[in-house]
């Protein structure tokens, strides 16, 4: 048994090393000035990439803020419409429940490429193509399944009895929702929100097709550099992307924690 544990530990460290070391190389690349073949380490370091991104004249910062704003809006909208849907699926019994569940989960499986190309023409006709609003709408499609899935599980666990208790004690439906339901589902809301935010922030193809080059987000700014093999610039954008994502996740966690003081209701 002791020997086995040793093997598992080595496997674990090896796999984690293989997963994480490319990210370390990414960090190094973002600070490179010159790194010729076949040097194992860069010959010279520099901040050209970061200077480029932070330079107000290159619009990179504006794109960064737009991306964060867009994804925050998408996250908010997704959660707002997913909460009632998840409650319906998690708490009530009704005809066609299985069908609805499957239909809502389908966008995780069906390629967004097919959906986006199909709906593009309709968006053009409706004047949604190449607009911010259009991009928000199309981002909702891959986000909803994740939010509904997580929140349905939450509602299956908390059920309706707590809410009923609150109603019996004289709380209005709105008070019940704010004082009881929301705090109970806070941890689930946090994980759903984080996941949805990341899904939205990572979207390339949907933004590219429906935004039509008018709505430019971080992945779109990054893409040409990866494509052309400019490793230093691509790595810089990647680092900025990852750091932004981590900061936003942290902020979200803080908001939920501060709002509900302790997070020790359940852990989902």
């Amino acid at each position, binding site marked *: 048994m002791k020997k086995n544990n040793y093997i598992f530990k080595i496997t674990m460290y090896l796999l984690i090393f293989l997963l994480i070391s490319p990210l370390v190389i990414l960090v190094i690349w973002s600070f490179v000035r010159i790194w010729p073949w076949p040097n194992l380490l860069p010959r010279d370091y520099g901040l050209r990439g970061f200077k480029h991104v932070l330079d107000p004249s290159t619009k990179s910062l504006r794109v960064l803020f737009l991306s964060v704003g867009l994804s925050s809006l998408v996250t908010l909208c997704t959660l707002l419409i*997913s909460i009632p849907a998840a409650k319906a699926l998690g708490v009530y019994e009704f005809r066609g429940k299985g069908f609805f569940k499957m239909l809502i989960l389908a966008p995780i499986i069906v390629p967004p490429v097919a959906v986006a190309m199909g709906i593009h023409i309709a968006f053009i006709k409706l004047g949604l193509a190449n607009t911010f609003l259009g991009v928000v709408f199309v981002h909702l499609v891959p986000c909803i399944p994740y939010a509904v899935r997580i929140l349905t599980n939450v509602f299956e666990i908390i059920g309706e009895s707590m809410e009923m208790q609150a109603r019996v004690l004289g709380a209005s439906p709105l008070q019940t929702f704010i004082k009881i339901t929301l705090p109970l589902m806070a941890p689930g809301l946090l994980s759903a929100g984080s996941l949805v935010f990341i899904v939205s922030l990572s979207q390339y193809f949907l933004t590219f097709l429906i935004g039509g080059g008018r709505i430019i987000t971080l992945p779109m700014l990054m893409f040409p550099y990866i494509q052309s093999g400019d490793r230093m610039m691509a790595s810089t954008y990647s680092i900025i992307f990852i750091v932004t994502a981590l900061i936003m996740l942290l902020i979200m966690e803080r908001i939920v924690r501060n709002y509900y003081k302790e997070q020790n209701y359940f852990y989902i």
Partner: protein
Amino acid sequence: MLKKFKPYVMLAPVMFIILGIFTMGLALGFFQSLGYFPAVGLKEFTLRYYKEVLTDIGFLDSLKFTLYTSFVSSTLALIIGVLLAYSIFQSKSRKGVLYTIYKLPVIVPHSIAALLVFNVLTQSGILARVLFYLGIISEQTQFPSLIFDQNGIGIIISYLWKGIPFIAMTVYTVLSNINDKLTDAALNLGANRRQVFWKILLPLLMPSILSSYIIIFAFSFGAFEIPYLLGPTSPKLLPVKAYIEYINPDLSHRPYSMVINMVLASYSLILVWFYSKTFKLFSKFDEIS
């Protein structure tokens, strides 16, 4: 009476988006694939485009290549992901940096995953440099080209980088929720550690393993970024092929693109069906006690 409609009303906003964009998108694509595209004057339903596409050698090569990369990448990700989850579980280091850091790739977008593979595996990448340093190769060109290659190595590896932590995360969560006493009971009845894994833990993990397998399989089957960035010029993966037909300035090419999309979508719908089947299959012992 009103209560009866309550769940449907609650589902309405989500269904508005799902039906209005997702289902609508697929339906419009379907019509266009049948040659109904009034915007450019095509108004007759026909199976011509299906016939042409499905008999095209180039398309069949692409389909094979797409199935191959997604099958290999998701199967390997599954095996290694389960191994990683079980290793973390066994080594008991449940707290600390290591336990969270492996999840990092999950929040990194696929385009960055492609860049990582690019940084490591090209002929001027880190791996080639390390081999040169060790004296195993003496020139860049001796390093095999793993990117843009016909075997899809670059594509497969970048999907692995994304898929392994995803599988490991899901499996680990379920694994740590399985009652430890079930393992005790099995040991007590004469099972050894290996038998406990194969006969008790793995079957109990199966629903979540299968569902995450289907998710990563479907994703790698229909995603655009990685094959676009790392794939060979020929055969192209299906999503890239569809996109290239789509941006053809001659709009009468649209139906070809839509046929490819429908092939992608129908494969995925089979997966959705399979997904729900597996859940029914396992619902009998759903309780993880």
